[in-house]
């Protein structure tokens, strides 16, 4: 993961706000806290949202990847 520019904390970018909220819900079902946040601007992509995962980031990333959240053209681990 890469740190967001403005928030200074790890962010998993997933694309749209709906997708980010679904990702948050999925993680919550697995007992992982996360917060939906605006993703920093990415050259060549533009706007988007992500989930900030304060703890268990690797597990969260694996869950989201397994559920297909990180395959969108606008999303991915940052």
């Amino acid at each position, binding site marked *: 993961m890469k740190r967001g520019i403005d928030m200074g904390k790890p962010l998993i970018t997933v694309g749209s706000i709906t997708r980010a*909220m679904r990702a948050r819900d999925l993680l919550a079902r697995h007992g992982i806290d996360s917060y939906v946040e*605006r993703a920093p601007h990415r050259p060549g992509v533009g706007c988007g949202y992500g989930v900030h995962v304060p703890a268990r980031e690797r597990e969260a990333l694996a869950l989201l990847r397994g559920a297909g959240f990180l395959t969108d053209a606008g999303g991915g681990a940052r």
Partner: protein
Amino acid sequence: MIYLDNAATTYPKPPSVHSAVASALSRFGANPGRGGHAMSMATAEEVYRTRAAASDFFHAPGPECVVFTMNCTHALNAVLKGLLRPGDHVVVSNLEHNAVMRPLHKLAERGVTYTAAAVVPGDGDATVDAFRRALREETRLVVCTHVSNVWGVRLPIGRIAALAHQYGIPVCVDAAQSAGLFPVFLEEDGIDYVCAAPHKGLYAPMGTGLLLAADGSALDTILEGGTGTNSVSLDQPGELPERLESGTINVPGVAGLRAGLAFVRDKGTERILTHEVGLMRTLHRALARTNGVELFTPEPDGESFAPVVSFRVRGVPSEETASLLASKGIAVRAGLHCAPFAHRAFGTLDSGTVRVCPSAFTTGRDVQGFVEAMRALGRNSHAVHKEKL
């Protein structure tokens, strides 16, 4: 006023809907899914909660399957124009609203054809057979109303969907008149697209529409624009709901929709249906005993016939009957109800009918007031008729 025009739009709305809309104007005044500031995020959260509530209500796979549209007509256009290509054939029922028929008429200019299956009211087997006979090799979609907005005739959508899926044909249901009264479930009924009018049986404000798609990937867009994602690309994003939701949505309406869904869920669709059917049975019996009144459907039973009653008074134009009722403070809808197909099927295309429909808020006293007004009109028209003789 005695309001019995609920098939057009339910009135009044629950107090919770009023509060939700008013609250949204002050609490959710920023664009959802665009900014990162607190109010934008709070607005997005409210929109997402409504998606989740609608997804639960219609048993859709998830919140991403819920697209907010301007109204049910917009949702139907999105499916018909997003899916059909020149040479495609569509099967509809012969009870469709113009929300289906006008887009199809327009698509006919591009080489789309359709066949109308004749619904046999109260006979599910015969109705499904009619749909089976209407299918062709080039049929790409079956689209049908769940409940006729004129006659209250309920179609066996689960069985129609099962039939269409045998041939790999997707099914779109116009649930404008049924959502909130009858179950409409994407997963259990096997429906590919559900279009709903939340300002009716879901008690939401006007200007809200729903398109639920189990998998919207086959739908091309009919509207493109800003979605808050992948802004560098001029291509519309591929994923729902953003793909079909360009521009700022009606957030106060969406907040009202969530409150409306909660109202229906808390009250229970079965309880609302039982209440309305009881009222319409009383009304139907009274009309059957009223001088000069012509009825076209049996008493609503809550199974094959929804609580909607259409009638006409012999020798009196429908608009005139509605106007006389309006002069007594009774709101009903006369004419063709934007459904000439449905009127043609029952032989009322030339005269139209007067339609009466209750809501969860309609009382027995309202129905009694309507019945008394109709009896008075009957006596008057009888007297006028005698005078003319």
